[in-house]
């Protein structure tokens, strides 16, 4: 009891002071001794939870099923009324205010998304502004703005119905709807849970990019630790009855799990998971000999001779990667065949905001030992190879351990 709780409390304090340093001490949401007992159940579902959620961050509640994470989240907009304890939003006690008014200030996205099937996409998104009595013109402008924000053409989608959309599009509309009245706080209950893995990955990335702009305070519930590491500025790992096992940044949780429960929950391969934390733009790109696809075979031969690489990367006129070509390909193809028809396809292409984990994944599935990095218009930037990734893992680990040692020293000083 004492050991683990002390550690949890320590990291709690560390997290809170971190936030204070970064954001001038602004706490958006504060949960105070929050508890929920359902009638007919002996054990409380949530027992005495106190937690502070800093402004503008994504805080992930993650834990095994039945740990009370969803109940905790639903108490914040009082879909589930707390049995005891208090909820503060930006310093204001909202435990007893009118729940409908409260909910209009909090965006809410659930796993099933729950779009209204009988009304158009525009009217779905307009739900809260209508409740708030906005003018028609303002609502319609806001709807278009939001659809564009989530990457959907308003002209094309405004008047469609949910059943005409794909799962990923519905999810986007769900997010747009939750943001319609520009709430400061968003609650998201496994928002990407019901979507196929490839689309989910894309939506997660899109959402992170969006969050960089909108800076909402987000409480995000998931049971998937990988999603937590990827999406969270801070992660609260919960054990049963929503007791906080550790509340900290993903880095610190991965490097320094508070106890066996957390370590178990993170599972093996924590250092592999760390790859989800660094992105391509954080590492140094290497250059590779490139050639335009209109170039002759002689030029390729000349480049290969002057380089220690065994192949060149062929780019099209907009500098987009097309093919890998080596001396062998040239020999077999015979003279005069354009480069774009030779060699191997330029797969494993990533953008700078891809995580190293995604990058490694791309490499493995293309069976190449390099990934091509392109900018947002798909023009060639450089390459990342498997050694770079390897080295990054090692240096991240060294840096993290060094920092933790320093932090621990500071903590000890404070305690004494």
């Amino acid at each position, binding site marked *: 009891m004492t050991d683990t709780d002390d550690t949890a409390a320590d990291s709690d304090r560390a997290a809170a002071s971190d936030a204070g340093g970064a954001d001038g001490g602004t706490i958006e949401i504060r949960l105070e001794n929050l508890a929920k007992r359902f009638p007919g159940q002996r054990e409380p579902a949530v027992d005495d939870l106190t937690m502070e959620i800093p402004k503008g961050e994504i805080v992930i509640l993650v834990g095994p099923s039945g740990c009370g994470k969803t109940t905790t989240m639903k108490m914040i*907009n009082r*879909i589930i009324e707390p049995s005891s304890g208090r909820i503060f939003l930006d310093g204001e006690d909202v435990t007893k205010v009118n729940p409908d008014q409260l909910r209009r200030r909090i965006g809410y996205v659930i796993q099933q998304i729950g779009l209204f*099937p009988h009304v158009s996409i525009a009217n779905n998104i307009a739900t809260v502004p209508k409740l708030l009595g906005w003018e028609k013109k303002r609502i319609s402008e806001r709807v278009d703005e939001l659809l564009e924000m989530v990457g959907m053409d308003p002209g094309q989608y405004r008047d469609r119905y949910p059943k005409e959309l794909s799962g990923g599009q519905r999810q986007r509309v769900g997010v747009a709807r939750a943001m319609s009245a520009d709430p400061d706080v968003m609650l998201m209950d496994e928002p990407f849970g019901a979507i196929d893995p490839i689309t989910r990955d894309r939506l997660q990335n899109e959402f992170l990019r969006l969050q960089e702009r909108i800076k909402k305070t987000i409480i995000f519930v998931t049971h998937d630790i990988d999603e937590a590491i990827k999406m969270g500025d801070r992660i609260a790992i919960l054990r049963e009855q929503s007791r906080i096992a550790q509340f900290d940044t993903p880095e610190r949780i991965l490097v320094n799990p508070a106890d066996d429960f957390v370590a178990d929950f993170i599972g093996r391969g924590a250092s592999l998971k760390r790859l989800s934390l660094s992105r391509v733009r954080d590492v140094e790109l290497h250059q590779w000999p490139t050639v335009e696809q209109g170039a002759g075979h002689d030029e390729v031969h000349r480049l290969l001779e002057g380089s220690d690489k065994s192949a060149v990367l062929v780019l099209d006129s907009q500098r987009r990667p097309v093919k890998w070509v080596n001396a062998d390909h040239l020999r077999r193809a015979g003279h005069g065949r354009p480069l774009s028809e030779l060699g191997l396809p330029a797969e494993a292409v990533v953008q700078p905001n891809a995580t190293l984990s995604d990058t490694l994944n791309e490499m493995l599935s293309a069976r190449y030992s390099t990934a091509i990095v392109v900018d947002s218009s798909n023009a060639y930037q450089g390459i990342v190879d498997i050694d770079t990734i390897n080295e990054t893992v090692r240096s991240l680990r060294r840096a993290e351990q060094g920092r933790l040692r320093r932090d621990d020293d500071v903590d000890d000083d404070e305690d004494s």
Partner: protein
Amino acid sequence: MPETPPWYEGLWTYLEFTWEDVVQLAIDHAVIVIISVLVSTVIGVGLGVLTYQTERPRELVLAVTGTFLTIPSLALFTLLIQVPGLGLGAKSVIVALVMYGLLPIVRNTIVGLREVDPAIVESAKGMGMGRVARLWRIELPLAWPVVLTGLRVATLLLIGIAAIGSYINGPGLGELIFDASIGSAAALSEVLSGTLGVIVLAVLFDFVYVVITRFTTSKGIR
């Protein structure tokens, strides 16, 4: 024995002379059914909305309205004319028809409301829609096709039962059936035109429901 003409010739001759009366009776019939369905809808949907979330009242309402439907119509009509203020005629018929119409309407209202995806209701709640707004703007529109099916069943049921209402002087095509003096030359034609009239009316009403369904159900759930 002189040969009697085939039944359809008799019917044809009968209608030639009386079609205006038959049409008037059909209109009376339709009116009394429409009134009864409307009253039954107000009561039935109301009861459904009030009880769909709580088990005991829901079971009770279904049991009571179910019992109404088991009372033989002749018996119910005979009982109702004894009630002060009702008596012989349209009033008693309407009361009986309303009672018979309740079960399909209440039942479908309850089923329709209970079939609404809880996730949709929760997201409505999570966005700050109050109880009444949720019911009017989300739950009832989504349950509407099922409720409408209930109305359709009730209507067809009442068209048939309304014919029997003429037994206690109710208006409608039943008059042709009950007034036919058995054995008379015109009896067969009268009964046939009454019965066929009821069938034609039922088909027309069904068509009207197809149109109503088409125009009152959102494109998103068709």
